[in-house]
């Protein structure tokens, strides 16, 4: 579903924010992307979703090149940034309708899905309020609902659990499992290694822009905890 081949990106300096990154996410995978702050996670994620321009390497989503066929890629992808900048002066429902319009979702489907996910995340009552009145967690929930509304084939999430309450965190994990069972691929970055360990079937560790370890959870940890594996890889 997602193939990143030899992707590199530098921001004008000598250092590369992403250096020859290669990783493949298959349908049904929950792929965790871990690394310390400034390791290159967001630089990779932003290139995957077509936000960041790049010249080195190739990124394919569902067989389409992000560089050459961005529209085909974006139609099947959902992206949740680490700190979603939503339109503060729209109401929650106005924002969700905007996203539904963009993905051309029928009135029946959007109503059903909004009701379902807003109910799950317990923000139905707040949908008529301006987003500016939402807490950080509520904005995060709204961003997650907007990502789920078009039933994407690939979900790319940058620190999706930040700001969520325990109930919402549990609900999101359940939804991620449900979607994977249906064949959706999920690629997400996180600092919460416990969550990654329990949730992901595959993991990649990035350090100074380079992938230093990747594979299935079993291959990577070899009986140790993900935390131990991560710290060992970081210290090497």
């Amino acid at each position: 579903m997602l193939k990143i081949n030899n992707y590199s990106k530098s921001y004008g300096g000598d250092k590369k924010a992403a250096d020859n990154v290669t990783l493949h996410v298959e349908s049904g995978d929950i792929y965790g992307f871990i690394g310390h702050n400034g390791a290159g996670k967001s630089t990779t994620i932003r290139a995957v979703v077509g936000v960041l321009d790049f010249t080195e390497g190739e990124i394919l989503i569902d067989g389409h090149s992000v560089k050459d066929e961005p529209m085909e890629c974006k139609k099947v992808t959902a992206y949740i940034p680490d700190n979603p900048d939503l339109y503060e002066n729209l109401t929650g429902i106005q924002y969700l309708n905007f996203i539904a319009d963009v993905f051309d979702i029928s009135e029946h489907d959007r109503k059903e899905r909004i009701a379902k996910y807003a109910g799950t995340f317990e923000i139905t009552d707040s949908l008529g309020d301006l987003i500016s009145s939402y807490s950080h967690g509520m904005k995060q929930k709204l961003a997650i609902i907007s990502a789920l509304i078009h039933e994407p084939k690939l979900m790319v999430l940058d620190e999706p659990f930040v700001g969520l309450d325990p109930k919402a965190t549990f609900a999101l994990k359940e939804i991620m499992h449900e979607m994977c069972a249906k064949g959706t691929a999920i690629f997400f970055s996180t600092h919460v290694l416990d969550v990654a360990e329990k949730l992901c079937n595959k993991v990649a560790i990035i350090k100074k822009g380079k992938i230093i370890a990747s594979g299935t959870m079993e291959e990577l940890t070899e009986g140790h905890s993900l935390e131990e594996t991560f710290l060992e890889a970081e210290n090497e």
Partner: protein
Amino acid sequence: MNKSIILLKNLLLSTSQFNIFRYTTDKKKKGNVIGNTIGMTILFIMLMVYCIAQCIGYGKLGIIDATPVLCALLVSAIAFVFTFLKTNGYLFNFKEYDMLISLPFDVKTVAACKFLYMYIKSLPWYMSISVAMLIGYSVYAGFSLPVAILWILLSLCLPLIPMVLASFLGFIIAKIGSYFKKTNIVQTILTFILIIAAFMSRFVIESVFKNGQVRDALEQTKAATEDAAAVYLPAGWFAKAINELSVTAALFLIVVSILLFAVVFAIVGRYYRSLNSALKSHAASGEYTMGAQKKSSVVNAIAFKEFKRMTGSTVYLTNAGVGEILVCLLGILSLVIGFDRLVSTITQNAPFDPAILRPAIPFIVYFCLGMISTCACSPSLEGKNYWIVQSLPITRKTLYQGKMLFNMYLTVPFMVFATVCIGISAKAALPDLLLYLILGFVLCAFSTTWGCVCGIRHMRLDWENEVEVVKQGAAVGIYLLINMVFTMLSCVGSVLLGMRMDHRILTGIFIAVVSILAGLFYKITMKLAK
């Protein structure tokens, strides 16, 4: 629904004051919307009254036929300048770029919709100028329905060409800036170069157009307008369409506007993603080593924070720095060509002795410096970062004192430089020069405190784009208008009174009056800060 329409509709809705008013349950927010709407309505009315009065002046002078050209030139000039200063922040490098571009929109659609959004949002300003001038024109030329329809229809097109050209220029500057590590600084320098070039070209164009023998002010205005229309063809097409009811000229204006938009946005769209990637990315050296750290007072620390806030944003820096740059140029120019020649150039050889303008020197300097007060927008610019200053152990009084101190740091050195330069070139005696400097200082204090009153009263923290508060906010608009009226009246007053009384006494009176006003506004600021 077409995706462009979906996006455009959403962009407009997301910044709609009506939407906020309709859905917010916060009474203070509702009050702010009402206050902003009333403030903006007053500004629109004042602008329209000014334009109608201008047309009445043309009518009385017997040059009402020149109104369509003047209207086209005025709208085009304003559209060009305001768009150019807004492109960075509105068209490129805007906050919700990541969210929008990750959605299935074609990149060209995003670029074009952002431009159209900018066009629709500023259209009420251009239309109020145009409609007001149509009213004034109709009073003298007689009302004609076809003329009125054509005028209004073509007025919709008038800002398009200058806006597209300004956007393209902004795009080129952003593109050049994106090749450098210090993108922001390069963009700011290039923008200033362009502003200075535009400022200087005014004098060059005038000297080309003027043959030196034209003395009659009436003929001069007409001739200059016709010359300008000959250079800027769309103004000529608009005038021809109105004066001669020429369908060809009207079609020319419409077709060229649309074609130019299509061509420019095909080019901009092509480089849009790479440009925004470069503008939104920042190289980090990661090589900092801990050195000695300086301690400073709270007020100075806030002023320094304001300085870094300004230099970190091209939009803010170009807006806040334009007056300082112009005043420097004015000072240098007066030293190079002399005060008398400078006055003759600015007043287009009007038949009066330049010496009578001497009491107005501080106001001439202030005219440039006081155009913008950082205090008018800096309270709103805190935006989502407002929690930082709110959670710190500082009072709001200290916060605004810091903001005011920064505006003084920014304006006073430039005021001193320009006043000394102009004073020397005008051969002002030392006591006069000292009085000019004192008056200049209190004028800076007036601009600072009045700006702060506007900034606090019309503070808006929920902006989507900093351009909304730096260039378009009610605080900035109200500050600008009242300050302009104040400066104009003071300028005229100083000249008229200067012919009847001693210059030193007059400057002393102005110092006292402006000091009282500045003190009053400082008190209001401190009261508002409670």
